[in-house]
Structures are given as C-alpha cells and as structure tokens.
C-alpha cells in the first residue's frame, strides 16, 4: 500500500484495432501499461502511436468516423464497456498534447483550474492553494507565482507546456498520457519536462509518445515499438520490454533497424 492519495492505475490494451473511416490505423495491439512507470511508445510516423495513445482515454472516438474494436481496461474495467462514462474516463486519464494548448482567454491560474471547474467539481473562487499544488508538481510555481493573473499566452512555450501539465495534474488523474510533449520545445525546456516526468511517475502512470529515441531512453522504464509493414498499412506492436533491453538487445530485426536509424 502506498500513502499517496492518488491511485496510479494500470492499463491493459487487449486486442485493440482502431479505425478512421473504416481503415485500421493501428491493429491487434496487446499491451500492459504498468502503474508508476513511464511507458514510451516509439515508432515511425504513421505507425499509430498517437492513435493508440488516444484510445487509452477515449479521445479517439471524438473524431468523426473513428471507431475501434477490442478493449482498453483501466484497472480491469473496460473503458468502452456499455454504460461507462467517457467524461469520467477522461478525468481519470489526463492528457498533454504536442502543442501547448492554453485556453487563450484565461489567466494562468484559471487555466490550471479549468478542469476542476468542470461539472462543478470545485466551486468558483480563487483556490490558490490548489493552483499552487498543481503548479508545484509541474515545476512551474516558482516562475509564475507572481503572474497567476497574467494571460496564459504571456508564458514562454516551455512554460505553457508545463502549465498544461499542471492543468492535467490538477484534476488528480490516475494516468497521464503525453503525445510528443516536447516536439515543439527547445533542448533546455525538454530536459526540464523530462525531469518532471521522472518525478510525476512516482505518483502516476505515464505513457509518452515520442519521436526522440534518446528521450525514450532517458525517461522510460518500458518501451514499446510500433511500426507498419508499408505506408497505408496499419501499425502493429512489434516489441515491448524494459527500455534498456529494447535499446541494447532488441529481439526483432525491425526494432534494431529502427533504433539504429536504418528505417523510420
């Protein structure tokens, strides 16, 4: 048992195939995401990493004409079972995107608290303590504590991304999904966010999609490699294992080719 109040959840992806317009984008995936670990999804563009990630909180199905077969179990309960509430799932499984997405008309504080104001989970009010907690977890508190009322757009790109992480953490999710969170950041901001990921995995389950293999090697405990046999074919999970093993002695030839830079 852990003294922490947040219960990091485990995710089981079972025989999952995700479609756009009836075309499979990623097929037949079986994958276990362990709690309190960072799992990296790597692979070439078009291998369905992001799609797979978006299936883990149901965001995939908000795209028109998207569908899926198979199961995603969040602590053994299928999030796509009849009667499961997508809004509740997305509260439990937070997400951070490639591009920082501050709500442009809101202040830094309102951005961080945005998720908590939904569905009146938290009444209106300053709630500076909650904002401070979330911003501290995201390593941003010291930088913005005097600028909580400033427009979110006035922060730098790296700060905005950490603010989005604070926003996702403020609702106290069990899992944090990150879709190439450093793709648009400079190396310094990238390292800051990687430090942050290592810290938050103590409390949360983290899944990160990345194009940057060094990043996967630096932050991930487990790495899953996806690829497709040809452009237009659905992506498939090739190999998954402890990050060190995947990078040092991959069992499949395609994994080795990708990691050594021969493909992708």
């Amino acid at each position, binding site marked *: 048992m852990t003294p922490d109040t947040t219960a990091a959840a485990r995710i089981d992806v079972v025989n999952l195939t995700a479609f756009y317009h009836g075309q499979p984008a990623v097929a037949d995936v079986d994958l276990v995401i362990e709690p309190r670990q960072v799992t990296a999804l790597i692979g070439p563009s078009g291998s369905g990493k992001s799609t797979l990630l978006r299936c883990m909180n149901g965001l995939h199905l908000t795209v028109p004409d998207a569908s899926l077969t198979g199961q995603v179990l969040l602590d053994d309960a299928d999030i796509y079972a009849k009667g499961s509430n997508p809004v509740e799932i*997305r509260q439990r499984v937070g997400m951070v*995107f490639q591009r920082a*997405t501050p709500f*442009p008309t809101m202040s830094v504080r309102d951005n961080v608290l945005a*998720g908590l104001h939904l569905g009146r989970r938290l009444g209106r009010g300053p709630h500076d303590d909650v904002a401070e907690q979330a911003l501290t977890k995201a390593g941003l508190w010291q930088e913005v504590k005097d600028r909580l009322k400033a427009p979110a757009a006035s922060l730098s790109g790296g700060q905005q991304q950490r603010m989005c992480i604070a926003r*996702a953490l403020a609702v106290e999710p069990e899992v944090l999904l990150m879709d190439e969170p450093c793709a648009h950041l400079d190396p310094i901001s990238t390292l800051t966010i990687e430090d942050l990921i290592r810290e938050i995995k103590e409390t949360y389950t983290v899944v990160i999609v990345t194009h940057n293999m060094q990043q996967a090697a630096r932050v991930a405990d487990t790495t899953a490699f996806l690829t497709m046999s040809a452009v237009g074919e659905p992506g498939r999970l090739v190999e998954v294992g402890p990050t060190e093993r995947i990078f040092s002695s991959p069992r499949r030839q395609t994994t080795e080719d990708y990691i050594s830079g021969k493909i992708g």
Partner: protein
Amino acid sequence: MTPLPGSPTPRRRVRGRWHGTDTVFQYAVRAAAALVIVVLVATAVFLVQQAWPALRQYGILSYLLSDRWAPSEATATGRHPNPYGIAQFAYGTAVTSLIAMVLAVPVAVAVSLYLTEIAPRWLRRWLSGLVDLLAAIPSVVYGFWGIFALIPAVRPAGVWVSRTLGTAPVIGPLFAGPFFGVSYLVAGLVLAIMILPIITAICREVFATVPTEDKESALALGATRWEMVRMAVLPRSRSGIAGAAVLGLGRAVGETIAVTMVIGNNALSITTSLLGPGATMASVIANEFTESTEPFHLQSLMVVGAWLLVIALAVNTVGKLIVRRTREDIA
C-alpha cells in the same frame, strides 16, 4: 559604379521597379477598384442632391425630431412644422432589426455549433446546404410566406401576449393590442429567418478555425461537449460571432420588400407597441415612391434614403471596430 571605399553606400530606391512590366493588367485592376469607390460616392452624391430641395426647405434636423409623416399636409411654401418626420421609421428599422438579432444570433450560434461539433459528418453537408438554401429564397417569397403562413400562425400567440403582457406595468405599452398580424414583431420574425443563413455560415467558418488541439485538450480534462464549447470554442470565436452578427444586422437594416409586406406600413406616427403596425426607413421608400405626388414628397423619401445610407455605413464601421478590438483582446 563602385562606391569609393569609406563613402556611404548610395541608397538607390528600387521601389516601383517591378511596376512597369504589366501595365495593362495593372490599369485594369486599378480601374475595377476605383469603380467601387465611384459607385459608393456617386450613390451618396445622388441621394443628397435629390434630397437637397427638401433639406433646404425643412432643415436636416427637423426630419429626425418629428415622428409624424403626413404628406397631405405639405404645401409648396410651408416650412414649419415639417410634415415629413422620419423618427418613426428610424424606430421601426431599429426595433425590427433588434428583434431579428435577438432571435437569430442565438439560433445561428446553436445551429453552427451543432453543425461543427455535434452532427455526424453525413448530416453536416446536408444541413449546411439546407441552411444556405434559406439564403437563396427571394425576399418577396419570404414576404408572401409572412403574410399567408406566419401571420395566421402567430396570431393566437400575439393575441395572448397582448392580453397578458399588454396590461403589465412598465413593459405593457410595448405589448399592447390590438394585434392584427402585420406588425414590428412579425417583420422582426421574418427578418430573423432571412439573416439566419448569413450569420450561421460565418459562425460555422469561425468555429471551424478553432484548433482541434484546443477542443481536445478541453475534452481530455473531462469536459462534456458543452463545456468544451464554452472553454475552447466560444472564447476564441467572440470576435467572429460579433462580426457575423453585425453582417446580419447590416442585412436586416436594409431589407426592404419582405418587411414592407408584413409590417403594416403605418407611416403616420410612431407605434409604441411591438404588436402594432409600423414602417421602416426602407419600407416607406418602397411603399410610397411610386405615388409621391405631394410637394417635397419624393425629395423627403430621398432624405430617408440618405439617412438609411448613413446608418448602414455606421453599422458596418462600428461593427468592424468591435471585431478589431475583440481580436486584439484575444491576441
């Protein structure tokens, strides 16, 4: 020529260098652009010129200060009082446009949100086309429909309103009866339907420009569809909605024939009640210009036209200022 070492680099202006290469094309497009300005200025000049005798007779302000339009009382020499008061037309234009805006903007925003955020893809194309078709219906057909379908349909409601709200304190006069059908209210209703397509079309485009990531990050926080719209879509779209509303207003202010058919054409004086018959600036011109036989009658209609032009230009200018300011707020 090489500049001497140490001497400042000569600043040769190269502007205009590329202008000589396609003279014909340039003069053609310049002429087309100039034509727009010429038409606008010529229209204004024409109106003022035609209205001039009446303006000299009665003065500019006396038109706006009176709400009594009684051409039969006009004489060739009488200057005071001005028998051609037009305040009631300004009132009619304002009231009908306002009713139209109040009804059309929320519906247009809702329809656009449904089309961009909720409707399944196959229905989007269908329904969008249908909304656009509303704009293709000729104005005069709307007028016919207003008289023979809308008025009979709303008559019971109008009578009921006049019996209940009509006797209420303070707001009572606005809803006083009797209700015959032709009225500001019905004109506003018809206008609302007529400006719905343009507002919807613009709102739809505005909502479509909201980045998917913004919407998804709201959804990813556990927002419902409505909360996502409130957090991510509407704040980014305020200026766009304002712009759409102003364009709708521009249409409503100028719309003529449908309004003339359902407003009752009571030009004589102001009708306070929304359920009563009235006239707008556009409708009085359409209704009377063919039989304007009294002294200064036609010229006074030109005055109405000139003021209508001024108002239309003002609405557009103010609207654009609002749009620009809202845009700066967001950035």
